[in-house]
């Protein structure tokens, strides 16, 4: 018999069985089909029937909407602390809730991290106004135990970095006098015909604040100055006042401030210098009492080495002092209306400004949404996979009950 014939026979048999179950009689003309019909009816007749007592009891429960059993009177129940009932399906739900909580935590930490990093990436800054480029004197690699303080601001009224010790505990928590290496970058825009005047103003202002211009460059075109870059050093304690004055010279398009706590490096260098000096004094005393010439020579060689070490440490400390006494300020000067590629958060007024703000807010929201999604999506997929896996295992265990 072919497969098609088999299928046809099977379908005919099953149809005959259904007919018999539907009509309650075995009426097929075919002997084999009739036999199957009789068998079907006999099997149905084997159906166990519920006892009337059980049927009545269950019907009453259905009618009452399956009231939950109360083991204690309501008055006693209300006095007991309520324990939440956890049912089996709660597991995937709990997994989902946990995933969301983890995602939110990560998103919040990313968000706060993003705010901290705004000095580098959160606020648009001109290509030549990065912190690295702004501070040749401060190009020494960040101390591994230094603490980065960074703050991005786009408004003149932005609060200054607190000069006191940072609120968090660092690697040199006991130090009262913190050594903070500060830097700031400013993008100013002015009409083309006023750029020269603004550039002069920057230099004059730097002098007035007892700072100095480390480097300056002016771009000139057919119609005069088109832009410029200035690397300034301003006494750290006068940084805020200087930034305030600089901001008045033109239209502020971006303003970024950052600070790095180098107190631990400073303390370490100071301690090493003290130790080196103490050792040098000890060596000098031993030199006075050297019993032989060769011993004296040996001590002198060590004294030379120590002197070199002391010089190096002094230099290091001097450089650290310079970097913390003077703030590195980078000023980018742009022609107003020129292709700066930078949108000012507070340059536009009225409808244009509002549109800019709205677009920026939308961008920020999208950024946050993408970050949250980046965390939530894998976690959600993991939770779903776990849920499906648990479901499959449960199903397999159940099926196993049938052998």
């Amino acid at each position, binding site marked *: 018999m072919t497969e098609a014939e088999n299928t046809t026979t099977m379908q005919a*048999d099953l149809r005959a069985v259904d007919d018999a179950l539907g009509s309650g009689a075995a009426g097929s003309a075919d002997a084999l089909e009739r*036999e199957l019909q009789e*068998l079907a009816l006999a099997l149905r007749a084997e159906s166990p*029937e519920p*006892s009337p007592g*059980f049927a009545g009891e269950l019907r009453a429960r*259905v009618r009452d909407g399956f009231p939950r059993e109360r083991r204690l009177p309501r008055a006693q129940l209300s006095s007991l602390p309520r324990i939440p009932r956890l049912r089996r399906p709660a597991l995937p739900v709990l997994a989902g809730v946990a995933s969301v909580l983890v995602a939110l935590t990560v998103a919040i930490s990313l968000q706060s991290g993003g705010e901290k990093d705004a000095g580098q990436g959160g606020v648009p800054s001109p290509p030549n106004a990065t912190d690295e480029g702004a501070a040749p004197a401060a190009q020494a690699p960040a101390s591994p135990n230094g603490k980065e303080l960074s703050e991005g601001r786009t408004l003149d009224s932005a609060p200054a970095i607190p000069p006191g010790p940072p609120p968090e505990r660092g690697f040199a928590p006991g130090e009262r006098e913190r050594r903070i290496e500060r830097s700031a970058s400013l993008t100013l825009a002015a009409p083309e015909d006023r750029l020269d005047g603004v550039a002069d103003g920057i230099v004059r202002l730097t002098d007035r604040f007892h700072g100095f211009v480390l480097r300056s460059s002016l771009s000139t075109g057919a119609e005069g100055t088109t832009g410029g870059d200035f690397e300034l050093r301003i006494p750290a304690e006068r940084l805020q006042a200087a930034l305030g004055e600089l901001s008045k010279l033109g239209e502020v398009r971006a303003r970024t401030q950052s600070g790095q706590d180098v107190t631990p490096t400073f303390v370490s260098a100071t301690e090493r210098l003290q130790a080196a000096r103490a050792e040098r004094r000890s060596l000098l005393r031993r030199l006075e009492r050297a019993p032989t010439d060769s011993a004296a020579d040996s001590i002198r060689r060590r004294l030379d080495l120590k002197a070199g070490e002391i010089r190096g440490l002094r230099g290091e400390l001097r450089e650290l002092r310079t970097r913390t006494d003077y703030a590195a300020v980078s000023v980018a000067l742009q022609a107003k209306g020129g292709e700066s590629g930078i949108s000012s958060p507070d340059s536009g007024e009225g409808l244009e400004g509002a549109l800019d703000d709205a677009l920026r807010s939308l961008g920020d929201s999208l950024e946050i949404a993408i970050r949250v999604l980046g965390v939530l999506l894998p976690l959600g997929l993991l939770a779903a996979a776990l849920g499906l896996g648990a479901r499959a295992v449960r*199903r397999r265990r159940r099926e196993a*009950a049938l*052998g």
Partner: protein
Amino acid sequence: MNEAIAEPVPTVARTTQTDSFDSLYERTFPKVYAYVASLLRDRSAAEDVTAQAFERAYRKRRTYRPSRGSREAWVFGIARNAALDELRKRSRRARLEGEPEDLAAPSLDDHAELALRREAVRAALETLEDRERELVALKFMGGLSNSEIARVLGVSESSAGTKLHRTITKLREACHDRG
């Protein structure tokens, strides 16, 4: 006017839903019980499991989606899960094999031929494996169509039909052997 209309709506909806479950219960209760009892072969356990299944179905009645099969198949699916859970519990204590409970002893007024026939059918049923016996229970005790059986078992309709046909053929041959 609006308030008068707005007030009774939830009540009507609740009543309709309860009525709907009531009618589902009336339609399926004997069949679900018969299926569960055939599967468990223990009247007392079958009563517990059936009650448990209907209570679960009642509490989850809002989760029913017509796209996933008929309401009857949905109730049978719940009953099957409850019955299999019960079987699992029992399998830890003892295997299913063993003398089944006499679920429906022939009454005195049964004709001798009919009694013999029933005896043969019961004996043939004993030759079936658990899964085959479940198919028989769903089809003949539960009264489900092949597509509903497929839904309950989570297989395709053609697969359910093939398995069912194979089981019926096996039963027929077993009856012949004993007849």
